[in-house]
């Protein structure tokens, strides 16, 4: 206790030493951390599960494409599925064994969805595939200048390729493929790298213990990321309720010139404690607190020369580069009233949540809610028979009375406590009115899509209105409507094409009919002439008769050719219209996909 106090004091003195100016964000709420239950013990290791269920979509973007088949033997760390496109990430085996199935299985998802998974029956050997690190780990697990020099010998492409191959995604919750993000940042001349170590959600301590126990990995990972993006400076934002982690990082970088202000140069890495107030760890809020800048609405941090990464992501980058290990495990906080020994556990991806919980002492009869993520932004799982994924930072198993139950909501009394708590300066009560009335235009006028869904308003609401739920509903409705509109546009285009095509076919038909008629008339005329000629022939036979017969034959065949050409034209017109139709369809779809991607980018990336 006194030690903690002392360390807190150290933080305040170091703030004074650094004189780092902090900004503030509006709103926010004070919540009790509930972190001490799980952050006192060292990181434990999960037992190898009998069966690993590895989903192929553990990131934003396209699902990975499996390159293994049922019956294949795989080693730990072996690639199971390739990245599929630019925004995607590969998936690796997190244990050695035999693949017994590649099928749709339930995955952790708010609506209990299923997704394609690779199932491995482990063989118990836990045998690694040969890893190819870029830097040997042996003599450099310290953050000396030497290691900085070693990093400088690598090229950006080399590091980023290693990150891409390791399947690293944003582990703060956004799950955006890191290599793609870094690649963009590199091109956009980002000058500030912000490492999000705030971990503002109650209960979650996986970043905290990572920094306490493995600070070197975090710092070396940060140096690697910094190298790629070419940032001039790096700010590590950490909430001031984590003095131990702060000290660990500080002692890790102290003594080296990149950590201290020299006469001329700015310090390369600064660890900055920020006041603990939820959601200080939201990407936009952390940027505001550390730099005073705001990410433009609908934009990315890179638009203001900033890139944000999570500490856990940095550690994963370290593991990929220094050990050559892909991202096949992560630290998971297991906590809550129904857990006997709350702790942080290094869990292989794909381990069934039930196994993990049992290892931490799950009291089955006490379970009330199973939440993946924190109590502010996580979601309730309907089953614990789903695997741990790259997104699983916390498993909160609450007992009765620990968390809120949905009681009947009272009417809104317009107290505006929600607006006072909104870190984005939105007007939640107005958005609520319009979302409830399904006035989707008006709710967008009140900037619905700037909402980061932090949950502060719902927490502050004395009427117990599930505000965030209304916003999620409105967002989904608007997106659905957009999709419907696009669909309608496509349908209209299609209809117009069809009309045009029918019109053309009709014209062609009419033309053909006209031609046929003409031909018939000609034939009749010819027949009449023939009859006449034959009548003439009776009088005097002549050679010219044969001539005229040949002529009529030629005319006949010309007509036939023309007819065929008309048919071909009609058919071509028809084909063209069809081809145009499909082209248009894919374009619209492409647009839709692009829009969905930007939206996703906008709504994601909050820790």
């Amino acid at each position, binding site marked *: 206790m006194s030690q903690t106090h002392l360390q807190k004091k150290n933080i305040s003195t170091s703030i004074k030493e650094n*004189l*780092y100016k902090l900004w503030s964000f*509006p709103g926010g*709420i004070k*919540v009790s951390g509930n972190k001490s239950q799980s952050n006192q013990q060292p990181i434990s290791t999960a037992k190898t599960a009998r069966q690993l269920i590895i989903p192929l979509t553990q990131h934003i973007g396209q699902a990975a494409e499996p390159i293994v088949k049922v019956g294949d033997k795989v080693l730990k760390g072996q690639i199971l599925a390739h990245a599929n496109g630019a925004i995607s990430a590969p998936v690796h085996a997190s244990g050695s064994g035999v693949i017994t199935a590649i099928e749709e299985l339930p995955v952790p998802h*708010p609506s209990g969805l299923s997704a394609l998974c690779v199932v491995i029956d482990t063989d118990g050997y836990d045998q690694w595939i040969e890893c190819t690190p870029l830097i040997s780990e042996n003599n450099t697990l310290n953050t000396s200048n030497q290691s900085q020099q070693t990093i400088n010998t690598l090229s950006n492409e080399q590091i980023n390729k290693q990150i891409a191959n390791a399947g690293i995604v944003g582990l703060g919750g956004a799950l955006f493929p890191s290599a793609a993000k870094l690649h963009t940042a590199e091109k956009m001349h980002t000058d500030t790298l912000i490492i999000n170590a705030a971990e503002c959600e*109650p209960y979650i301590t996986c970043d905290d213990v990572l920094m306490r126990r493995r600070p070197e990995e975090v710092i070396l990972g940060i140096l690697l990321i910094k190298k790629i993006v070419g940032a001039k400076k790096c700010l590590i934002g950490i909430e001031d309720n984590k003095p131990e982690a702060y000290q660990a990082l500080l002692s890790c970088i102290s003594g080296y010139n990149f950590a201290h202000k020299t006469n001329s140069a700015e310090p390369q890495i600064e660890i900055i404690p920020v006041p603990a107030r939820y959601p200080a760890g939201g990407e*936009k809020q952390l940027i*505001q607190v550390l*730099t*005073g*800048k*705001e*990410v*433009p*609405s609908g*934009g990315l941090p890179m638009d*203001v020369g900033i890139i944000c990464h999570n500490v856990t992501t940095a550690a994963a980058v370290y593991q990929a580069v220094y050990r050559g290990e892909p991202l096949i495990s992560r630290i998971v906080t297991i906590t809550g009233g129904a857990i006997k020994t709350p702790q942080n556990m290094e869990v292989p991806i794909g381990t069934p949540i039930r196994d993990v919980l049992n290892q931490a002492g799950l009291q089955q009869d006490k379970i*009330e*809610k*199973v*939440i993946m*993520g924190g*109590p*502010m*932004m*996580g*979601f*309730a799982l*309907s*089953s614990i028979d789903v695997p741990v994924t790259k997104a699983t930072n916390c498993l909160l198993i*609450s007992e009765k009375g620990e*968390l*809120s*139950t949905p009681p*009947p909501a*009272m*009417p809104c*009394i*317009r*107290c*505006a406590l929600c607006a006072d708590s909104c870190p*984005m*300066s939105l*007007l939640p009560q*107005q958005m609520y009115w319009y979302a409830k009335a399904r006035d989707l235009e008006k709710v967008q006028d*009140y*900037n619905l899509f*700037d909402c980061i*869904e932090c*949950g*502060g308003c*719902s*927490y*502050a*609401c*004395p*009427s*117990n209105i599930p505000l*965030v739920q209304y916003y999620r509903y409105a967002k989904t409705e608007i997106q659905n409507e957009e999709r419907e509109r696009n669909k309608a546009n496509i349908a209209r285009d299609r209809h117009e094409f069809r009309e045009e095509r029918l019109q053309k076919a009709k014209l062609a038909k009419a033309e053909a009919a006209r031609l046929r008629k003409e031909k018939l008339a000609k034939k009749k005329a010819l027949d009449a002439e023939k009859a006449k000629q034959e009548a003439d022939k009776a009088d005097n036979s002549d050679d010219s008769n044969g001539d005229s017969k040949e002529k009529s034959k030629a005319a006949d065949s010309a007509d036939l050719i023309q007819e065929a050409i008309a048919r071909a034209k009609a058919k071509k017109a028809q084909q063209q219209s069809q081809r145009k139709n499909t082209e248009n369809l894919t374009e619209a779809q492409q647009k839709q996909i692009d829009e969905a991607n930007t939206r996703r980018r906008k709504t994601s990336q909050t820790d």
Partner: protein
Amino acid sequence: MFLAQSSPFLKPALSVSKMMRVVTLLMIPGILTATYVFGYGVLINIFLAIIFALSFEAIILYLRKRPIKVYLNDNSALLTAVIIGVALPPLAPWWLTFVGVFFAIVVAKQLYGGLGYNTFNPAMVAYAILLVSFPAQMTTYWQTPIMMLSQVNGQTLSLLETINFQLFAQLPDGVAMDALTSASPLGIVRTSILSGAATISEIDAQGTTFGMLGGIGTEWVNLAFLAGGLFMLRKGLISWHIPLSLLATLGFLSLLFGSFELDSNPSPLFHLFSGATMLGAFFIATDPVTASTTPRGRIFYGAGIGALIYIIRTWGGYPDAVAFSVLIMNMCVPLLDYYTQPRVYGHQVDNDDQELP
């Protein structure tokens, strides 16, 4: 299957019920002071108002087929009743309270849709209707403040006598209505100045109007409500915007006009510590349902009420003006809310202003 629910899952910090209860409890210092100054009538008013309010609320909820227990437990009717009880003259007959509470709960609140849907502050609707309909009872049934009794040779009533008068309109033998009541300081100042009968210094010389800060008697009640209000601020139950802007505007205007003509304008302190100023600033204007919801809107809202209080008190037809001022500003709330929306994060950003240290 476990309990499914959407995030956030943390227990909410506050409930409407608790909010209203705490606000009501924080009125107790003011209520006790008022009882000391103006007699037992204050308590009886509050008691009657609570009974009437809860009954009306229950009946209407029943008629509207709403869960009665849930809505009675929200304590909003309780708070409205207590405010009406304090605002009414201490010797108000029971039917005055009855009519007032009827208009507050049934008309102003439930007919508009119940809690959260009313445009106008129910307690102030009640007060305004009573003041317009029963001006005599509303202005003259104020018992003489205890501090003034000796100076004016006034009389007071015991608890039983007060009940007897309020319920059955019977005064004890030998006690006249005139001996019980006296005009309020705000009323005296207004009539004297408007009619030109006396200047401020002449009123002061009589020694029956001005106390140390504001009007005799009411200054103590105002101080007690100020204490309760400051505690609410500390507890985060209300934001500072409305009370501060209200009091600042009222004080500023009285200072401004007072500096032109000192002898026909009472001091800013008199305005701040007389009548229902503090009750209005902290407990009435801050009613969440009918007040503005944006930070800037609240400042305009409070300032508007403060300005109207000064205008009506000085040039209007009524000695105190909190009710009318609040009702007029209630009407402006939608406009204020619309035009004072805060700038949303990431909109109209000028990031170049911010230089990294």
